[in-house]
């Protein structure tokens, strides 16, 4: 009974599916007007059709989606599906050959690479697409704090800081002024990134949980966090860099990642990874699938040009420097695969 119904559904499905395809081709001719620079590649892209399947990091997910949205105006017949179960789960699907592209907020691990190669996913192109940076802020009036190390941040905002009322009480050596903490809540990707980059190693060393103190005011809205930081002269808070850099009446605190250098967050220092609370965002392309499917090639062509310029900044990340963009484009054009 059950398979019989499935079959009947599927027959309907395939019949209608081909209909759908015809509709798409007929509508494609009239909508190539929305291209960006009118170059040849965009004209070519307009005639491309097919499916692109992307999975992986939920941090990179918005970039890939935004690129797909921009690409849709150029190539309306390409259907891009993006999912964000996480970097590790994404690689699992990618290595099984289920997806064309894998989003990643870290580089591929050797074990993951090995499982890809085992399954015959041999030709993988690794492309850096943007940088995720997090800014630590205080009120513009607070000049007493020159620089914060990861240890100090962990002491101030980590679980050991629970209940402390002043900067000095949480981390000896800092001024004895009231400590008012503002930051994103657990539902936020910025929250997760902050914990991963700043807290995880220290928490393990100190035998504590890699989480924040619970007695601060979390908010999902960056503007609310900003208002909180502005409201107190001795506040401490953190948001994504792309948001923080445009904020008024706050001071971005330089951060020492453990090598003794205090680095101020700037687009350059983040894009070059000198600023310690930053991490590169990657996409991994299955080159064999790209070779077989012009839709994937066209999408990545668009990704490494318009995507890197426009989409990365639009969804709140730091775009690559021009040199890094050129490097990504070079890698893609040369189809440099990882080994």
């Amino acid at each position, binding site marked *: 009974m059950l398979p019989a119904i*499935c079959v009947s559904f599927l027959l309907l*499905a395939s019949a209608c599916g081909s209909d759908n395809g015809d509709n798409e081709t007929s509508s494609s001719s009239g909508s190539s007007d929305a291209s960006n620079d009118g170059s040849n590649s965009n004209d070519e892209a307009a005639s491309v059709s097919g499916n692109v399947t992307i999975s992986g990091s939920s941090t990179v997910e*918005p970039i890939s989606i*935004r690129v797909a949205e921009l690409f849709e105006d150029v190539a309306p017949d390409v259907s891009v599906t*993006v999912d964000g179960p996480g970097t590790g789960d994404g690689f699992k699907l990618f290595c099984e050959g289920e997806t064309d592209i894998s989003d990643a907020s870290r580089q591929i691990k050797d074990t993951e690479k090995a499982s890809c190669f085992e399954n015959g996913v041999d030709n993988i192109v690794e492309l850096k697409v943007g940088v995720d940076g997090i800014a630590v802020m205080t009120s513009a009036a607070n000049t007493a704090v020159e620089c914060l190390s990861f240890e100090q941040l962990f002491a101030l905002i980590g679980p050991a800081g629970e209940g402390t009322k002043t900067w000095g009480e949480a981390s000896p050596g800092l001024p004895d002024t009231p400590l008012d903490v503002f930051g994103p809540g657990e539902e936020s990707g*910025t929250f997760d990134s902050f914990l991963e980059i700043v807290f995880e190693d220290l928490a393990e060393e100190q035998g504590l949980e890699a989480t924040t103190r619970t007695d601060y005011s979390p908010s*999902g809205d960056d503007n609310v966090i900003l208002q909180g930081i502005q409201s107190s002269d001795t506040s401490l808070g953190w948001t994504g860099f792309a948001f923080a850099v445009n904020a008024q009446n706050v001071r971005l605190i330089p951060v020492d990642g453990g090598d003794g250098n205090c680095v101020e967050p700037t687009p350059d220092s983040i894009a070059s990874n000198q600023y310690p609370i930053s991490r590169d965002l990657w996409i991994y392309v299955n080159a064999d699938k790209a070779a077989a499917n012009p839709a994937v090639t066209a999408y990545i062509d668009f990704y490494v040009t318009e995507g890197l310029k426009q989409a990365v900044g639009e969804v709140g990340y730091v775009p690559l420097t021009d040199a890094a963009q050129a490097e990504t484009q070079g890698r893609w054009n040369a189809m440099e695969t990882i080994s």
Partner: protein
Amino acid sequence: MISRLVDDRARSAIAGSIRSRRVDVRGALFRSLLQSALVLTLLILAVLLVSVFTDSWSQISGRLGDFLSGTLRSRSSDGGLGVHQGIYGSLWIGVIVAVLAFPIGIGAAVYLEEYAPRNRFTSFIEVNIRNLAGVPSVVYGLLGLAILVNGDIFGLDRLTGGRSTLSAGITLAVLVLPIVIITSGEAFRAVPNELREGAYGVGATRWEMIRTQVLPYAAPGILTGTLLSMARAVGEAAPLILVGAVTGRLGDNPALLDLGALADRFTALPIVITSWTQQSGRDVGFAAAAAGAIVVLLVFVLIMNSAAIGLRNRFEKKRG
């Protein structure tokens, strides 16, 4: 007779309590307790509805049409943001559940109640069905993942298209099947035996008896049960995530009646709500969109319920 059993003292006590105008304090207290239980329930519902509606106002007042026809987007300010793909998924999951779970479930219930002999084996089966109704939905999601998406056993993934609306619908049909069997069984059990005996008495066969007496009498009860299971299926998110519902971006935005997309990747209203709620951490405008999607899901379930209630009333009139 009574006067002999009840002595004078008892008689005067009873007479006293009947004649007196004593205020029944404890009774009034009990009544107000019951009322406050009802008021509390309604209050929680009201708070929920008011907060959801106010949160969603920016989406459903200004751009309802766009919101209903739009798709998953990367930014909440995008004019193309909307729930159409979610409605498509939920609608067809509901249809597949109705097509698969209802006939199979009601059929199994008819057999268990009307045909199967009452012995240890059938009561063992009934206990198992009740247990199945209590199994967490994630487990059914894993079952769907293994059999329908990965095709571990019969290679069914070739029929369902893997991570598709079809797989999701079948998974949820299996999920609600035990509930449909149990509630239909209860409805059949509530049919008075006199009806069955009457039918036999005028020479009906068992099939005729079930068709003309049991099914019409039990129909309203069956509908109530199937309705509840349908609402459950449409509201489930956890098994859908396992079966591969898309949270980020779905390439196509099929028309509501486009059967061709049933074997494609899918999303559903509960998934859209979950995804947007998570994204509100990155882009706060998604909170309003998530609230809007909740309103759409509520209206969706409401429409389904009223259809079922309408049907039930028709059956009840026939029965009356």
